[in-house]
């Protein structure tokens, strides 16, 4: 079973990961966007870590919702509302319980993906974070349904996210700033898909570390 500490650790892991890859994300976004993705994600998850540090006795659902709200209120740009709504919706899916199991995690991530799609209207192949998030969630669900232990299931989900991330390279963007480049967006990896892969990897480490 997972609990509030899982959420807090996951958010800390993400904050560390996006900070470590800040310049790389900037560079990817500079190629087909405006070069701020690494800054946005770092600012956002730093704020999340600070917010959660004040809120240690919340339920996992409450913490994830708070993380989402914090992203909405601190990031701006496209990634702020998208990831913010995702985590908020994921938090709501976790409900009020003090713990959650593998199935509930899948449900929460599924809800998070739905929030992104509702808000941003991107479909697979539009060269967005959906291209990493969708296969990750699908893989996780399949593996969990098949009874794979969570650390392994998450490893496969993270691999699926990375495959999806790399698959954005040859695509022409149809959503977000990169779409303004038209054909010039081809040949570059989507920054949002890249940070999404980092976020799934962070979850994998969180769960592996606690077991």
């Amino acid at each position: 079973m997972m609990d509030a500490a899982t959420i807090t650790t996951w958010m800390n892991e993400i904050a560390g990961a996006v900070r470590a890859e800040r310049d790389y994300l900037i560079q990817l976004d500079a190629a087909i966007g405006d070069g701020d993705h690494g800054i946005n994600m770092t600012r956002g998850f730093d704020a999340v870590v600070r917010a959660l540090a004040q809120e240690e006795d919340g339920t996992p659902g409450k913490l994830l919702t708070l993380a989402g709200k914090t992203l909405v209120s601190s990031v701006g740009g496209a990634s702020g509302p998208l990831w913010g709504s995702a985590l908020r919706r994921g938090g709501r899916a976790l409900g009020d319980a003090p713990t959650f199991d593998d199935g509930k995690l899948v449900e929460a991530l599924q809800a998070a993906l739905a929030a992104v799609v509702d808000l941003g209207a991107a479909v697979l192949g539009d060269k967005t974070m959906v291209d990493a998030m969708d296969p990750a969630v699908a893989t996780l669900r399949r593996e969990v349904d098949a009874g794979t232990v969570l650390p392994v299931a998450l490893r496969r989900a993270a691999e699926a996210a990375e495959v999806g991330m790399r698959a954005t390279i040859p695509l022409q963007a149809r959503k977000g700033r990169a779409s303004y480049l038209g054909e010039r967006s081809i040949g570059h990896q989507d920054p949002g898909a890249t940070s999404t892969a980092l976020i799934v990897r962070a979850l994998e480490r969180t769960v592996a570390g606690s077991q």
Partner: protein
Amino acid sequence: MAMRKFLNDPEQLVKEALVGVELAHSDLLRFDRENQLLISKSAPRQGKVALISGGGSGHEPLHGGFVGVGMLDAACAGEVFTSPVPDQMLAATKAVDGGAGVVHIVKNYTGDVLNFKMAADEAADEGIKVEAVVMDDDVAVQDSLYTAGRRGVGATVLAEKIAGAAAARGDDLAAVAGIVRHVNERARSFGIALSSCTPPASGKPIFDLPEGEMEVGIGIHGEPGRRRAPLGTASEIAELMVEAVISDLKPASGANLLVFLNGMGGTPQIELYLMFAEVEARLSKAGYKTTRSLVGSYITSLEMAGASLTVLELSDATTALWDAPVNTPALRWGV
């Protein structure tokens, strides 16, 4: 990390600059530091429709330079090239609502649209009438239902002035929003970059543009354009811009135009006026009448060298609204 910038801490840049705006223009506006807003001293005015806009910083004077009398009631400043967060737009909406509702002028970028949308939803929950209008005047981007669509660029400045005058004379919410929509429909823009710019937080130019080349079809966030081409003469570039804008706008023959030749921040006025003359020559040859004009750096990408052309087909009504008095840090006449 040394950039060619007057800068202390990049993370504090926006707030520190807004302090300066407030100090220089305390007769017109105040700075709400917590929400990173510039709010007109004349707002809220009971019964007047309020106008707010906002977006990433680095486009100055847009939007803060247009807060005052006869234009915006408040501007929300995001980090450099990053949309503000919904909390800001919500706070601005509440601060300026005079009971007659608030128009949100939103430039069409995924981030701006999503963040403004969240704020508008919350404002509605709190009982404030909001009408959001999304500006998308940039002809460089092929419009399509399946993409993020066109970007909002230069027409935003014109819409803020024209709709601001409509709000000042007492038009209601639907009318003011309708005027923003009308300006967006009858205006088109096209931009060219001769250099990249360097966002302070990353400290690196967004793209590398060799001398002798230009980026064609840029937006305002320092992003590369639709294509790269050998640098043309002013005359050739003017031809390109006029052709792109006019072929898409298709003004009525002999129409009255407002021609807005905008600098991207690092282009000196002498070049802007040269470009204006080139553009003008082509428009008048095509039988149009430039009855109003605006030449200068009003919607910028930091220190980028470049220019954009915005053409608005004027009616008598929009001409009168353009001419109405305005008093803001960046645009002022009649008062």
